[in-house]
């Protein structure tokens, strides 16, 4: 079993997101430890990008703060190296195509394999363009995660059949950010996904409460939460880790109900 599959092996998975370096990498490290301690099954680590076009204002803010504190791709690899000495929870990177391209795909994915990154999510790399990085990802045993959106009609089966690691199902139209209600007919999308692949599928975008997480995990194999955690970081800065831990604990209980 690969490491990503193990995250989904004990019931529904809770997948928290954090932007590395917001407000600094020491805080990120402490938050990740808290996430693990409180039951995170897989952790999504954002590498900041200057112009995150798939993000709403909350995560845009995290990207700005992280870059302002001098966070770079190289420093994030160092941070993951240190964390891997104590943490075995699966971890995936979320960033934008240019961050990988500028670092050099070969160099980036070699480093991912060395430090123990299990997957890569690139929101601006759709199915049509995945060959840009897929061969290098495979060579280094890093799963290139596929996204499916509410507007993916006619494409779901094709994407699902070739998906690796897990499928990231985008709950709603628009950018990341918390939503009071998720209205997309996700169960019919899930049905097509299930018919075409056996890999797990987690739902993200707009989830901020244990009730929403429970509902989304009920429809799929897990819930991904980003903006709600970033709001804690924006409010508490370097004091965030304990609040992040409490939040993860509460959300994890939600998905396991």
């Amino acid at each position: 079993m690969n490491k990503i599959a193990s995250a989904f092996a004990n019931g529904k998975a809770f997948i928290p997101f954090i932007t590395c370096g917001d407000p600094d990498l020491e805080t990120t490290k402490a938050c990740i430890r808290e996430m693990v301690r409180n039951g995170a099954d897989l952790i999504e680590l954002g590498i900041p990008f200057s112009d995150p076009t798939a993000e709403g204002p909350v995560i845009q803010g995290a990207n700005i703060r992280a870059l302002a504190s001098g966070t770079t791709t190289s420093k994030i690899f160092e941070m993951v190296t240190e964390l891997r000495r104590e943490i075995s929870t699966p971890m995936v990177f979320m960033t934008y195509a240019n961050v990988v391209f500028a670092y050099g795909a070969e160099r980036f994915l070699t480093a991912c394999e060395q430090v123990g990154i299990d997957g890569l999510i690139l929101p601006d790399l759709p199915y049509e363009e995945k060959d840009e990085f897929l061969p290098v990802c495979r060579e280094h045993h890093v799963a290139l995660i596929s996204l499916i959106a509410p507007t993916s009609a006619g494409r779901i089966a094709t994407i699902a059949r070739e998906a690796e690691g897990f499928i990231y199902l985008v709950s709603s139209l628009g950018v990341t950010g918390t939503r009071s209600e998720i209205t997309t007919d996700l169960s019919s999308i899930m049905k097509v996904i299930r018919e075409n692949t056996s890999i797990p599928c987690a739902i993200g975008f707009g989830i901020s409460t244990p009730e929403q997480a429970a509902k989304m995990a009920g429809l799929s194999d897990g819930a991904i939460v980003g903006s709600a955690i970033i709001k804690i970081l924006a409010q508490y800065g370097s004091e965030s880790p304990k609040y992040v831990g409490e939040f993860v604990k509460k959300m994890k209980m939600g998905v396991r109900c």
Partner: protein
Amino acid sequence: MTNTKGRFGIYGGQYIPETLMNAVIELEAAYEYYKNDPEFQTELSTLFNEYAGRPSRLYYAEKMTKDLNGAKIYLKREDLNHTGAHKINNVLGQALLAKKMGKTRLIAETGAGQHGVATATAAALMGMQCVVFMGEEDTKRQALNVYRMRLLGAEVIPVKTGTATLKDAVSEAMREWTSRIDDTHYCLGSVMGPHPFPTIVRDFQAVISREIKEQMLQKEGRLPDVVLACVGGGSNAIGSFYHFIDDAQVRLIGCEAAGRGVDTFETAATVNTGRVGIFHGMKSYFCQDDFGQIAPVYSISAGLDYPGIGPEHAWLNDIGRAEYVPVTDEEAVCAFEYLAKTEGIIPAIESAHAVAHALKIAPELSKDQLMVITISGRGDKDCAAIARYRGEDLHE
């Protein structure tokens, strides 16, 4: 190496969120159908001729020619189009296409405001809703155009993120499009973004070089020796170059905004200072740091103040078919003033970048050589900013 749709060499592609993929696929299919539809083409020609005032003049700049004592200079007067710039060519095409597709709402980004004004104009004409995203910094530099857009019935949303300029307006328009696709067409203003935009925008702007070719053959009986145009994203430049790409004897020169100079960080000269990257839906050249963070570019010209360039230009550069030269703020302002005093034509500060390079190279060319400079827009919108640059505060 990837070889997907919409490639110019290695450049182009469709690097966008999954949420938008069906929208660009639908757009491509509609465009492929309507571009060969005689009725669509007739409607578009009528709009070009009767509404936008095409064909635009190819004007012999006699005083400028005598003054520079070199190449014989013609100006392609896109500034005389309705709304005062070449932007209307693309917008009429896209708005008509969007209408055929059943869309009722246009969204757009704008830098100098010319594309925003053109989109607001087409929306008013065709009875569509219009929302324009504009960097807050640019809303200040181009206050007159903000007023024009609102007058035309558009909603103008100042974008405060990042550098609050054109790239942030593009990002925000893309974000808006992901949240509302059904009734909305993203009327992208330049030959950039994901496929099929670089091709669609080029095809609608190619009317510029088609006319230059006809007009030059009529006036001089031969093709020009050199064609100059300013380049931000590159829509008026590709429009000016397109029908000459296969005529190898025609030199094609794109003039980039160097801001305070290519050896400073305050520049927007993408080909001259950028590297290959992936951003805003395309692979092309971008101003960026070692880690791929997009650089906060600068130019006096809000329309050229963009850290990327259209993928077809990146390719034309790599294969050596077109040259891309940097022009500083100071050179552009001098050319702005020069054309006003010499020919009685106030060019847009964007277009003044092309005039500035012409001032450098025309004297070195022989008198039997023919030069065309595309004046992509009129400069009324820039007067207050140029006055400020010269230390004078205008109260409009």
